């Protein structure tokens, strides 16, 4: 019994430890010479954006996995990851705006990075909407997989937009060809700890969400099989009088 409880609690333990480390480093790390305390927004903004890439990348893997194997468990991975990705994309945009107002002077501007991030957000909101257009789980999985693959083209487009086009948004400080451009080691460690903490949160959320999808699918299967004898082909819907029915 105790070992079972412990194994069920692993996501919470991991989240508490990694968030505590990240929070401690975010607090003790020094202020930036130009930005001052504003630099601390980076410790949550960059990890949120990283999770958006990771989550939509996993949606791509789940989508390809479904099309190759035709197993619904891959579709559940893709769907769960897209939901989490949409949330963290929105979080990255919101935190970025809070940082942008005091730094740039505006909440929002239509440069390539911001515009493409907004496009990515709405494409995956569309992905989630698409998942509700089909009741049949295999039809839904097939349609979703197509968009899950096409949408992934936005991941490199968003990340490299700051290199390919001239933008107001600065290029990456961490994921760049010649290594991190952050000179203060504590600032770098605080950022890395944030990335680790957010990734742990992602893994824990994924485990929970996939499980929830699996239970929901099973409940639906049970409900359908229970309905079949009652509302099968041998039973027709009662006709309503008045001629108002559309057939």
């Amino acid at each position, binding site marked *: 019994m105790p070992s079972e409880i412990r194994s069920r609690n692993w996501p919470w333990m991991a989240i508490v430890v990694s968030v505590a480390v990240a929070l401690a480093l975010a607090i003790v790390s020094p202020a*930036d010479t*130009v*930005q001052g305390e504003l630099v601390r927004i980076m410790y949550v903004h960059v990890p949120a954006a990283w999770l958006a890439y990771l989550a939509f990348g996993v949606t791509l893997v789940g989508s390809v996995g479904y099309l190759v194997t035709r197993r619904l468990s891959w579709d559940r991975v893709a769907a769960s990851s897209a939901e989490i990705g949409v949330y963290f994309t929105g979080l990255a945009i919101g935190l970025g705006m809070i940082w942008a107002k*005091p*730094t740039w002077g505006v909440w929002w501007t239509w440069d*390539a990075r911001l515009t493409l991030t907004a496009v990515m957000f709405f494409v995956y909101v569309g992905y989630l909407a698409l998942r509700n257009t089909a009741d049949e789980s295999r039809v839904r999985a097939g349609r979703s997989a*197509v968009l899950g693959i096409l949408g992934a083209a936005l991941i490199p487009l968003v990340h490299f937009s700051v290199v390919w086009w001239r933008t107001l948004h600065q290029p990456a400080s961490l994921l*760049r060809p010649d290594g991190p*451009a952050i000179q203060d080691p504590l600032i770098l460690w605080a950022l890395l700890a944030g990335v680790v903490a957010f990734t742990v949160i992602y893994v824990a959320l994924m485990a929970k969400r996939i499980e929830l999808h699996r239970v929901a699918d099973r409940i639906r299967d049970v409900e359908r099989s229970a309905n079949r004898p009652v509302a099968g082909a041998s039973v027709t819907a009662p006709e309503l009088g008045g001629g108002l029915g559309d057939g």
Partner: protein
Amino acid sequence: MRAYWRFLVPAVITVIVLILLGFNLTSSLVYFNTPTELIAEDPGDSRLRLGGQVVPGTLTTTTEGVTFEVTDGRQAVRVLHTGAPQQLFQEGIGVVVEGTWDGQAFHSDTMLVKHDETYRSEDGSYDPDQPYGDDQDGA
């Protein structure tokens, strides 16, 4: 066959959208022009954005706002800015100003501070098309 159509139609739409993005919007994806481009192209009366670093020692306050020089490491342009500068505005920082160019000076009424990604004080030349620096270090 239906499965092919299901993939083909969105794929074709996506390719069309990407082509439109790639060709029609390339110029508007460039968020600002450099001083070198401004002097070479001479945009006339049209409004545009100019980006670069504030040259240290050129910043003075005027009755309407501030005046300073902006450089990309090759050319420098005098900017007459009307209005209060941004919070982080200072000598040496990257700025994007919006306004018109009269051949001698750039008249701006909107200023954005362009923070760089290095998290230290910037020195040397600044080229927005080489965000990771070019081969000749500090050239």
